């Protein structure tokens, strides 16, 4: 039996929805009608069979990346490796930390090869590949508490910025986190790089040994998790202001290091309603409880 991905346009008739197994993409492109159409067809064509391609190397992708040597074959798999390799010498990381961003990038590349577009995004569950040409901008919305209705802030990304990837990591998402951050949003030159860095920084927002933090081995929750028996955060109790500040500071230090190394263009860290910004422009406050269309 051939398994086919789900390929549909969303209600607005403008955005493309691609879903296959755990991959769920929202794609939007702006440009001439025929070009957008060609880009969407290219995206759908590239998406078909993409999951099988990844799964062919799944066992290796779930192993810690060897900082010196890449034995992966697939284009996406190698892109995942490249994104995590800078971290592999100093920390535990597997190529899976960049899977969402790498897939978003691949679909974006397929679209841009098919047609010229003025701007486009591929949003893979919050890990987003961007394309911006000429004077194009995107407005990016950030929630301070992804787990509940909270304050929405926005930043503008311009074609002249080097940012082409945005990714968010934290303990509320579908992936496990070793840290306690509600959300760490990273801006980087590629979606895969943003994805990997967001994972690393979110892991660094932490209070090791704190009594209010509940952790369980990842493998107890998901038997085949790439994190194995490492402890992942399942609940965070009440933290005092000093605790929050300490955890954020740890994450900030990590983010500054990555910024200095040229691995990221900026980061926004959020924990318990408090936030901190590293290298990114200041954020405009948008009305709370409202999702702007552009943020998708």
């Amino acid at each position, binding site marked *: 039996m051939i398994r086919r991905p789900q390929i549909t346009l969303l209600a607005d008739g403008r955005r493309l929805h691609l879903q296959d197994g755990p991959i769920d993409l929202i794609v939007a492109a702006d440009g001439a009608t025929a070009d957008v159409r060609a880009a969407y067809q290219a995206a759908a064509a590239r998406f078909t069979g993409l999951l099988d391609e990844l799964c062919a190397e799944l066992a290796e992708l*779930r192993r810690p990346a060897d900082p010196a040597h890449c034995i992966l074959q697939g284009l996406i798999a190698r892109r995942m490796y490249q994104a995590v390799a800078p971290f592999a010498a100093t920390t535990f990381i597997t190529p899976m930390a960049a899977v969402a961003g790498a897939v978003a990038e691949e679909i974006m590349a397929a679209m841009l090869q098919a047609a010229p577009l003025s701007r486009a995004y591929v949003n893979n569950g919050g890990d987003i590949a961007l394309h911006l040409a000429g004077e194009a901008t995107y407005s990016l919305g950030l929630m301070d508490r992804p787990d509940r209705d909270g304050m929405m802030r926005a930043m503008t990304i311009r074609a002249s910025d080097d940012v082409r990837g945005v990714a968010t990591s934290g303990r509320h998402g579908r992936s496990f986190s070793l840290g306690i951050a509600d959300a760490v949003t990273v801006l980087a030159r590629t979606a895969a790089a943003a994805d990997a860095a967001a994972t690393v920084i979110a892991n660094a927002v932490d209070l090791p040994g704190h009594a209010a933090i509940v952790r369980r081995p990842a493998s107890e929750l*998901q*038997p*085949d998790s790439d994190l194995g028996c490492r402890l992942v955060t399942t609940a965070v109790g009440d933290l005092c202001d000093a605790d929050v500040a300490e955890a954020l500071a740890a994450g900030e230090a990590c983010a500054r290091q990555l910024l200095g190394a040229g691995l990221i263009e900026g980061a926004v860290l959020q924990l318990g309603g408090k936030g901190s910004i590293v290298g990114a422009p200041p954020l405009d406050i948008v009305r709370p409880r409202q999702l702007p269309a552009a943020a998708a």
Partner: protein
Amino acid sequence: MTDTASDSAGDKIRCDACPVMCYIKPGAAGACDRYANQDGVLVRVDPHILLQRTVAHGGKLVPFQTSGDWDGKIVHQPELFVTAIGAGTTYPDYKPAPFIVSSELDGVDMVTVVTEGIFSYCGVKVKIDTDRYLGPETAIVRVDGEAIGHVTTSEYGSQMLSLGGVHHLTGGSKKEGRVTCDALMDLSNCKPVEMAIDSGATVIVQAGEAPVVNGIREERMRVGCGSATIGMFAKQWQGKVDEVVVVDDHITGVLSEHQAGKLLDIAATGIRMKGRRSTPGRYFQVAEPGTGWGGTDISDPLAILGPFDPKTARPGMTMLMVSTTGEHAGYYVLDDALKPVEQPMPPELKFSVDRIQENCEPALCTVLFMAGAGGSLRAGVTDNPVRLTRSVKDALTRVTSGGAPVYVWPGGGITFMVDVTQMPAGAFGYVPTPAIVAPIEFTLKLSDYAALGGHMDFVLPLKALKDASKDMRELPWPQPGHRA
């Protein structure tokens, strides 16, 4: 993975919905958050989350690619199809069908009339892919001693049973009707049913599984009749053995006399066969049908041979006897009295026997549910029932059963057949009439629905149905060969 923590719970399951193949613990979901382990059973948790969110945000559902110049390579799934399972109905159908649902599909307003039909005119056709003799044609098939149908004409190596129908359901005793109804429902729901055939075998039939005949699970069908087997393998036997007899219930083949043997200049051996010769090398009725060699009743294959002709036969001649499934085989050498004596089989002949086995298809039961939606059921759909029939014939209305495609038999009424393995689990029920309750859906354009006298006042938008009914089940779209 090798570094997973000690695994206390042994009842995790492996999801095969996508190639990620997640191991999922009880109460947990896979990487996609769509499939979960509920008490050891893989369930689909939230199949249309984005679609539902879109609807909740006041959005409109628009199908992708409405203009029709797509390259056709990628088939997109219909967004949501409402099946009739659990819709309920009354009998006779004097009021509009329980759910008349409109949704958008391919850019036109579509309406799906969803009802569960109560079919007292219904039955199942069972095709059992086995050469094993099950019983004579027209023999009664019984469950718990009650007649539920009969053996009908066989089809290319498969045994066919015709079960159910109005006479067994309502024309006989009360018990006969009840037993027939239960058997039809179980067969249609892909459950095993044990049946006994008058002057034949006892067989356990389950859709999608191999038949169990007289307590033994069948493995394979014959590769062909004995004559066909000679034709297929004559070349592989040439030079390795003097004579080959392929034993079969229908046509037994003899290599040296067969056209294939003649073409290869295989010499006559003086063999004499019992049975009725059809054409050279092809014999009918070498034995009675049974559960022995090649679907015959024999356990010693030499019983079908007469004495060898001493004018042609020589001591030391070799002979292979094999059944059409390769399950039985023997190697013989003629002694000085020209009597065949069994000897160990040489490896190159064993190889050809294995090759016959390898070329046999697996034994399998398939069940087609067949019913007529000709009567008052149509009145639940429209106030002018014959127009629905005509609309189906004109292919304006698509008929499905539990979302599965059906074949509508040409001619009068709406008589349809559906492969029960393509329908969602538990799709069939019954009423004490007795009759089988099966889902049936008619899908047509809203404008066509109005034109054929549809109950326009009762048309609900899809969203209203989802809001109204808490016990709706959403299922993945049925795929060929897989039960949802």
